[in-house]
């Protein structure tokens, strides 16, 4: 017994290393090394583009434009994430199966919910965005939905896991005092899972800002749109201003969320 588990461990690790190395090697082969790695004039482009890192444009007029774009992106992120929570939470509760006792009703609801969540999060927000823009036309709603749908899949799945992984003893006590499954959920599971759920939702918010910036490439107001305009005009100094603003917002949210997380686990 001991010998088999011992050798399985080593074999597993050896096999894994082999697989990873092979995967990397094969992928390197897929690259077309012969066609010239760099663009013609690529190096001068690189210098111009990355040189702009040190000289971002700071004129008041442009800064005002940039800040407005930042605000737009932020509102998209917030609305998208809140919508995602609204969709993801019920789906997550359904997928966790905590409202039902054993039976075919439970397994089918769980399976259906998990399938929907998996489907929602398989598709990248930009692909969703493209689908919505073609279907509904260019509008903020297309962007918000494009953000909310995959995020609801991600959030829903994790909410379901958190609700399931909650310690069982307090729940047993609640049930013993007569609480229904729903009440157990409301009074027991949700409060206990809340720190993890809140913490992850904040993390998703941070990702959401990034996604919202990208989504505005599609043509809606926001940082991405402005970045594209500046890039088309080859004004790389402006591009870096916008990028710095984006990174600043993300860092601010990151700091906010780690402070919240630290307070929650105290």
């Amino acid at each position: 017994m001991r010998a088999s588990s011992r050798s399985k461990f080593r074999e597993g690790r050896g096999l894994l290393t082999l697989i990873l190395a092979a995967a990397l090697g094969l992928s390197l082969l897929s690259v077309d090394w012969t066609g010239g790695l760099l663009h013609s004039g690529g190096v001068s482009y690189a210098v111009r583009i990355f040189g702009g890192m040190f000289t971002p444009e700071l004129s008041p007029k442009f800064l005002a434009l940039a800040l407005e774009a930042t605000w737009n992106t932020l509102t998209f992120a917030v609305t998208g994430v809140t919508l995602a929570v609204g969709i993801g939470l019920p789906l997550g509760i359904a997928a966790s199966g905590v409202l039902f006792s054993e039976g075919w009703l439970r397994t089918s609801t769980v399976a259906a919910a998990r399938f929907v969540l998996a489907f929602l999060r398989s598709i990248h927000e930009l692909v969703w965005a493209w689908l919505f823009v073609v279907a509904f036309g260019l509008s903020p709603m297309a962007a918000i939905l494009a953000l909310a749908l995959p995020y609801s899949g991600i959030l829903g799945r994790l909410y379901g896991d958190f609700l399931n992984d909650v310690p069982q003893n307090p729940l047993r006590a609640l049930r013993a005092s007569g609480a229904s499954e729903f009440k157990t959920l409301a009074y027991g599971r949700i409060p206990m899972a809340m720190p993890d759920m809140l913490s992850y939702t904040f993390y998703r918010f941070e990702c959401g800002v990034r996604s919202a910036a990208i989504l505005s490439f599609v043509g809606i107001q926001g940082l991405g749109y402005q970045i594209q305009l500046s890039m088309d005009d080859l004004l790389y100094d402006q591009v870096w201003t916008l990028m710095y603003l984006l990174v600043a917002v993300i860092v601010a949210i990151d700091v906010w969320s780690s402070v919240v997380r630290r307070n929650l686990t105290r």
Partner: protein
Amino acid sequence: MAASNEQQRAIRLDQVSKSYPGRMALYATSFEINVGEAVAIVGPSGSGKTTLLHLMGGVIQPDSGDIFLNDHRLSEMKPGRELSSLVGVIHQQYDLVPHLSVMHNVLAGRLGQWGILQSLMSLVSPKNQTLAVGALEQVGLVDRIRERTSRLSGGEQQRVAIARLLVQDPEVIIADEPVASLDPARATDLIDLLAKIARESNKTFVASIHSTDLAHQYFNRVIGLRNGEKQFDLPVAFVSPELLGGLYELEGLERESVVQE
């Protein structure tokens, strides 16, 4: 205890003191230990045993005073090859890397002698395997050599730590409560093993323990500490239960109940 001039001094402390923010861990302490002696350090928790042992092992530096190993000043020795060939330290637990195999943990005793490249290569294909096998034979764990260390019991892991000490082969063995988390039977076995190893290679052996029985059986000298001060330093024959009782009393702690002979 005065050192005789024929015997070599393995460890010498000269007015060594150590403090931490908010408290004094060790007041100016001096003593000498000769090569080959087996010294037990006793005292209640917080008396400064660990601080003293760590100072002797070169793990921490004193605030004042000097420590000498084989008449070399400890503060002038760099950790690494020189220091590790002179002194080795074993703790209550957590000395070993749980994710590594027993063999790697044992061979880590040679790290002081290996260069960077050797150490790297050894992670993949271990060098000096016979060395590890020999050490593990001495502690009785050869058959577990390829297992992940975390799978071994506490007592077995301590023996692996001893095997690592064997590979390291220092002249002085310092043990900080090596058996505190073991049951009395295993504790006896472990101290027996350590004392035997020390005796056979004429190593100096210093350990902190709670059990007076173990002290009487395996050590020839006892140093008692309380509140960072040396209370006594006597041959083991002169250490009476009353003396020990005085050491531990008024601390609110009881002595570990003595295993009846």
